[in-house]
């Protein structure tokens, strides 16, 4: 983890609520892995005061650029939209533990909702590079929010879109979809991000079949470097519960271990 001022190469609105930012990461010496995140200073003001955490959306090792896909939620992300290409952005990272893709896995299932799509896109990219196929269920409020679908398809992922708009994003529908995918493909591992409901569903489905699954969690952060204990969640250790830091021990955890409140 390192604090850097990276040049913004582009920062553009890509749909009603989503923006996409590309930064020049030439100065970054550390390897960045899918599931990891950066803590970004959205403005130089005292309000918003804290940095905001964003997962890596795409890692372009050749171009040495990093991409973020973000939802405009409150003041911090609003300020981030005001940053222009050519300016620098104050970025701290890479932070946290990444997803793990094991040797020998051939097909993985991704179940993402909302901004979780950004997080799993980096994983799809990594999977593609490792020759692993991905089936991805992308869930969102509206079709408009499913902008990463094409990027994922570009990585060869088989994409299933579900939205409130289309009335097929309820848990039951997604359950049927997952069952269908599991029936058609041998899924070696599953990954999820962005929805507690879908995470519980995926946990139940994968647990009963013994499919390993990983989840990337979000929690409000103070330091994002493991010292303040703001960002905790509970994980099972045998019979006991252990309170661990999302920014340090996470944000990626084995799905069966996390307590999905």
């Amino acid at each position: 983890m390192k604090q850097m001022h990276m040049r913004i190469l582009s920062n553009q609105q890509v749909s009603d609520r989503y923006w996409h930012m590309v930064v020049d990461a030439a100065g970054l010496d550390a390897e960045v892995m899918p599931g990891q995140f950066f803590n970004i200073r959205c403005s130089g003001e005292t309000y918003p005061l804290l940095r905001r955490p964003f997962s890596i959306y795409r890692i372009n090792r050749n171009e040495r650029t990093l991409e973020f896909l973000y939802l405009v939620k409150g003041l911090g992300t609003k300020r981030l939209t005001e940053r222009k290409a050519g300016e620098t952005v104050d970025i701290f990272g890479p932070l946290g533990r990444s997803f793990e893709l094991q040797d020998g896995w051939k097909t993985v299932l991704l179940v993402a909702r909302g901004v979780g799509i950004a997080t799993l896109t980096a994983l799809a990219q990594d999977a593609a590079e490792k020759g692993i196929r991905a089936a991805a269920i992308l869930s969102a409020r509206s079709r408009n929010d499913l902008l990463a679908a094409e990027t994922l398809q570009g990585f060869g992922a088989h994409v299933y879109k579900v939205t409130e708009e289309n009335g097929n994003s309820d848990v039951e529908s997604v359950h049927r979809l997952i069952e269908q995918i599991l029936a058609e493909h041998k899924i070696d591992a599953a990954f999820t991000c962005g929805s507690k409901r879908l995470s519980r569903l995926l946990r139940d489905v994968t647990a009963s079949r013994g499919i390993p699954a990983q989840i990337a969690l979000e929690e409000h952060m103070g330091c994002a470097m493991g010292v303040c204990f703001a960002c905790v969640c509970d994980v099972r250790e045998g019979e006991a519960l252990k309170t661990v830091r999302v920014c340090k021990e996470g944000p990626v955890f084995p799905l069966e271990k996390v307590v999905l409140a």
Partner: protein
Amino acid sequence: MTIKQELDLTVNIGSLTLRNPIMPASGAFGEDMEQVIDFEQLGAVVPKSITKEPRKGNATPRVCETVGGMINSIGIQSKGIVYYLEHIVPYYRRYNTPLISSISADSIEEFVEMSEIIASREEVAALELNISCPNLKGNGLAFGMDPEITYRLLQAVRQVTDKPLIAKLTPNVTSIQEIAIAADEGGADSLNVANTILAMAIDVHTRKPKIGNGMGGLSGPAVKPIIVRMIYQVRQVSALPIIGCGGVMNGEDAIEMILAGASAVQVGTASFIQPTAMLDILEEIKQYMRTYGIANIKSLVGQVSATK
């Protein structure tokens, strides 16, 4: 033009001499920060307050943002004193920087018991008694809200160790002076002014408190003027070295606290925003000293004029 000169940044906290006045605020510092700053350059290291037994801490979200500040309610998540002595204390042995152990307890007896054990470790240079954490008891009550209890607590801990005792005061009081005098008379060697200010924020859309615990402690630049006032007030009634804490974001903020009466300054929230904040602040202090031809930081302590 300023002349290059040797700057004396050393400050004294009781019998302890620090190489410079900048140290972390408890709860905003830990071993993981070794990756971003060189601990050898700090005046002291202050790990998160430790409790006797392991504690789970409070419900999430544990932090939220307000204008110029943040509210936290971690609830002193702690691995307990056994872990602390086995892992945390030995870890800091590798640095040639005094280790100040922050202690949090639920009773005077527990403060005494923990202080005796921790102070007996030679790696520990001083104790900071967190008598002010607003999260531990219902409704934000804390030992440091009562002068009588503060006095007795300090007196009791004083019996079991000769190491410097820093009383970390709570700002949530009518008279910080009264509490400062109590801690001073009880036997404190230094006063930390101060912990966080009890606060609350409500999400108007969900109608729920923004942090899991309902209330929490406010820190960050928003509170600095309140803390500067308290440092100034405490300085008027006690000769003990003061450690200023609350809202320091840059070198000028640190100098402001020193002028108000602080001998040293702790940095918390700023490190979340700027991981290298403590070292940046140190550089800015040096720059200030050079600009104004100040050779010795101690000469600035309490040097604010009485009025404009």
